[in-house]
């Protein structure tokens, strides 16, 4: 298992969040999540410009094995989606924290950090799942 990037926040739904300088938040799924899903073959992305509620369905990632919903960890406006995933969904497998990002959201409110985990906390969380 690769080391978790230290500059990200994590959710129990195995998503990561990165705060960008313009105040938007980039979101993807973690290495643990992509590994559990297996080879990704299709990603259904939301439309740019729509609003999503916190915990609302935001995208669908489909692997050879199964389809999984990706829920918005924060509410806000979708300001960008990773169009490259349409032709190359496996970017999520190979670079989950970089080129495998999924959406960028401009939060409608602040980020509730209490509901998010630090890298160390997320590591403990997934270690406990593996036991």
């Amino acid at each position, binding site marked *: 298992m690769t080391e978790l990037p230290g500059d990200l926040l994590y959710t129990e739904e195995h998503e990561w969040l990165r705060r960008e300088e313009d105040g938007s938040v980039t979101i993807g799924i973690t290495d643990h999540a992509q590994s559990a899903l297996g080879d990704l073959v299709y990603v259904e992305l939301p439309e740019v410009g729509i609003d999503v509620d916190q915990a609302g369905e935001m995208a669908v990632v489909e692997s050879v094995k199964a*389809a999984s919903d990706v829920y918005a960890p924060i509410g806000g406006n979708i300001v960008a989606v990773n169009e490259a995933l349409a032709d190359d969904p496996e970017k999520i497998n190979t670079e989950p924290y970089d080129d495998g990002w999924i959406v960028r959201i401009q939060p409608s409110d602040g980020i509730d950090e209490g509901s998010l985990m630090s890298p160390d906390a997320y590591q403990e969380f997934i270690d406990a799942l593996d036991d």
Partner: protein
Amino acid sequence: MGSKTPLFEKHNDAGARIVDFGGWDMPLHYGSQKEEHHAVRRNAGVFDVSHMTIVDLSGPRVREFLQYLLANDVAKLKQHGKALYTCMLNADGGVIDDLIIYCMSDTDYRLIVNAATRDKDLEWIREQAGAFNVVVDERAELAMVAVQGPNARQLAATSIDANYRDAALALQPFSGMQAGKVFIARTGYTGEDGWEICMPAADAATFWDDLLAAGVMPCGLGARDTLRLEAAMNLYGTDMDEMISPLEAGLSWTVAWEPAERDFIGRSALEVQRHSTDKQRFVGLLLQDKGVLRNHQRVVVDGIGEGEITSGGFSPTIGKSIALARVPAGNYENAQVDVRGKLLNVRIVKTPFVRNGQIQIDIDGDTQ
């Protein structure tokens, strides 16, 4: 924890993701299911199929028994070593299991049945066998691997006893032979050439290591499923079960109607279905839109009715989603599938989708 095959430690050593399959701890993949899939289509892969149940049947009346037990006719097995794919039906014509049967001698046959159906299969076979004085012997001490792919036989040949190598390479499709303690058959579940090999459990790990050293890629159940789906080979419990007859699962070709006087279990029920005009069709689907077809999704045929996907997934060889489905009778070439609340367009295509490394369907154009 489930049952473990003699190769379980090998799977762990190779970094397999282990899943439960019919009570067995089996490898799903060893890293990339797609790479394993492509290895079998392009070169060679090996699957641990030791969880499957091997049953040897023997006795002077064994052939007569099998002609009663099975929907296909073992009389087609005119030479020792020949294999036959068949369903084993209940009295209503529903499929108890699908299996491969090998004729070992005039009085000895070998059945290979599914892992998840082991208990009910053995119970059923023993129940029917009594009247024929057939001895039913489960060979739980044997391991089994499937080496599949265009180069599988050549690469695996170096791992078998040199005394039998030429004879093994000369085996015709759907034929097997005993090679010392090992039984080798030119059969499989991938749509590629290859062997399925039964051997004493104690020899399995060495054999596995030899295959990997020869360049054969270890493959898990994930790739096995996408390969068999592309080859349009049915999966028991998914494409058919005890409520579904072979005629409703695209397996009419496995039912031997002749000779008419052969009274196999389920025959009278099948005869009624056979002459019904309202039979459902079992077809292949190719998804025209983006997305992935999955098991149990609803098929909608405009103006005709509804059906269901029995096996759906992504085809790594084609790069699109494909499925097997039971759909209403009628002549039509297009349908829609309810994929997570959206109706996506599918085209009915002639199966198999892929065979011997080659795509068999017209991806862009004409229907069957």
